[in-house]
């Protein structure tokens, strides 16, 4: 219980420190609004406000994109933070503290995510309602399933970022890995629903972790079915646990070979 309280305090600190930097906070919300605005314009230009594609109308595509982008943009800076801690050697100061480095990063990240979600959610809802109105065929009873899937999407994204961040124990520069993984999650579910992709790519994507970050919650919001919920959420949980375990493993291996010079 005491341990839990310790990490809850870090979550609280994470929330407070993110709320203090108002400019960053507002910049994040404005960027979220910008990308949604651009995609709204893009879909409208493609559809001319008429017709549908792969079962998606402009209304559903816009709401799909808002849900998917909310998961992606409500991520924490864990990749950058771990990278900096390891490369600068600052990690050395944290190793002798009475907490786990990974759990500390996790708790701080959760604080950051909470603030970003609190900002992005109203911005996304407002833009969606103003531009295309309420989501067509919204199933209110599906919302708890969407919330669960969003939560695991965010957690999966967090542990994948943490995992790549900790490769800096071995590599001089790991930003290329980060960009590639990030773009894979963009292409396999953020910019376009998987239904838009060629069949072979769609089938491969369903075996990979990337689509379970943004595609799963956005798909459940716009086309909920219990069958899809039961097929996607267990895989989300599986991949989240896998990447959490991999993060713990890479940390325990990496920290053993850590060599910090200077003081």
């Amino acid at each position, binding site marked *: 219980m005491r341990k839990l309280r310790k990490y809850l305090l870090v979550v609280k600190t994470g929330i407070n420190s993110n709320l203090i930097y108002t*400019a960053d906070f507002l910049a994040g919300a404005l960027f979220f609004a910008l990308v949604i605005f651009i995609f709204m314009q893009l879909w409208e230009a493609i559809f001319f406000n008429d017709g549908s594609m792969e079962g998606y109308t402009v209304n559903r595509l816009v709401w799909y994109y808002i849900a998917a982008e909310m998961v992606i943009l409500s991520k924490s800076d864990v990749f950058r933070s771990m990278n900096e801690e390891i490369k600068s050697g600052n990690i050395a100061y944290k190793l002798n503290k009475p907490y786990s480095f990974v759990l500390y990063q996790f708790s701080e990240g959760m604080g950051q995510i909470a603030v970003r979600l609190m900002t992005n959610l109203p911005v996304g809802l407002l833009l969606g309602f103003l531009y295309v109105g309420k989501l067509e065929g919204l199933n209110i009873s599906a919302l708890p399933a969407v919330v669960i899937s969003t939560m695991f999407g965010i957690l999966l994204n967090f542990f994948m970022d943490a995992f790549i961040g900790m490769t800096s124990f071995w590599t001089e520069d790991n930003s290329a890995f980060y960009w590639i993984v990030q773009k894979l999650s963009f292409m396999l579910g953020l910019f376009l629903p998987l239904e838009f992709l060629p069949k072979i790519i769609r089938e491969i994507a369903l075996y990979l972790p990337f689509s379970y970050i943004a595609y799963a919650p956005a798909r459940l919001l716009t086309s909920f079915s219990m069958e899809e919920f039961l097929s996607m959420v267990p895989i989300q949980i599986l991949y989240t646990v896998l990447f959490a375990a991999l993060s713990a493993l890479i940390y325990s291996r990496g920290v053993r070979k850590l060599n910090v010079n200077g003081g």
Partner: protein
Amino acid sequence: MLMGDKKSGIQAKEKTGTRKDGDKGGRRLALSFLQHLRLICLYFKYNLLSAMEYRVSFILQALGMALNNAFFLFFWWVIFQKVSSIGGYGFKDVMVIWALSSSTYGFLHILFGNVRELPRIIMNGELDTYLLQPKNVYVNVYCSRMIVSAWGDLVYGFVLILLVYGFAPLKLLLFILFTAAGGLLAGAIMSVADTLTFYIGNSSGISRLVTEFLINFSIYPDSIYRQSVKVIMYTLLPTGFIVFLPFRLLSAFNWYGLLGLLAIDAVYIGISYLFFKRGLERYESGNLITTKL
């Protein structure tokens, strides 16, 4: 008559004097331009040599960035499998605007890697080092750093343009010109956002937003936007002059368009420089002693 001769003689002398002064001023300006061009080249050379010290990291970052951009090619390919045109833009047209955006921002961050870093430099008091050097601060501060991954952006743009047009020397020359001019214009706009730090304190948030707006407005066809957004794209955030007018000139060249574009670029760069110069007068050093390696 005599008086008149004398007067015209004095006037002639004055004119000659003014012309001489003008010549001197012009020569000094040309010399200063060449000196700063040399400074940019030297910074480029040493930044590149320093990046090449970590060759594997250099290649990884550049390739990673090129691959990162290539993912968007996939996105557009999927879209154009479903529709033949978006607001008059076909797949090849979108590739050209991607080539222009990618190379333009690549060029900017290779030569002027400190763009967007100025607020941090000012806030940390690191500007003092540049003030002590006998070179123009505006040029000196921006070109003293190179972003290695930007090489991936630059090369990616060239690969795309070669794929779209094939080896067409004239188009390639124009592309190089637009890359350089667009890069300088984008840098000038980002610099205005950076320079706000002199006036209102840390403007890194604004600077980041301006960059995001510039980049995001550059990589989707401008025809998807309404008139009000297009007004912004040709004034406040001139992506129209960075990417879309160059794209139109590449498709259908005309001299008036080219000269007009270069003149507009020069005006924006001039305003950005003057804004920086006035802002610099407000700078107060924190007397922090730093070293610039």
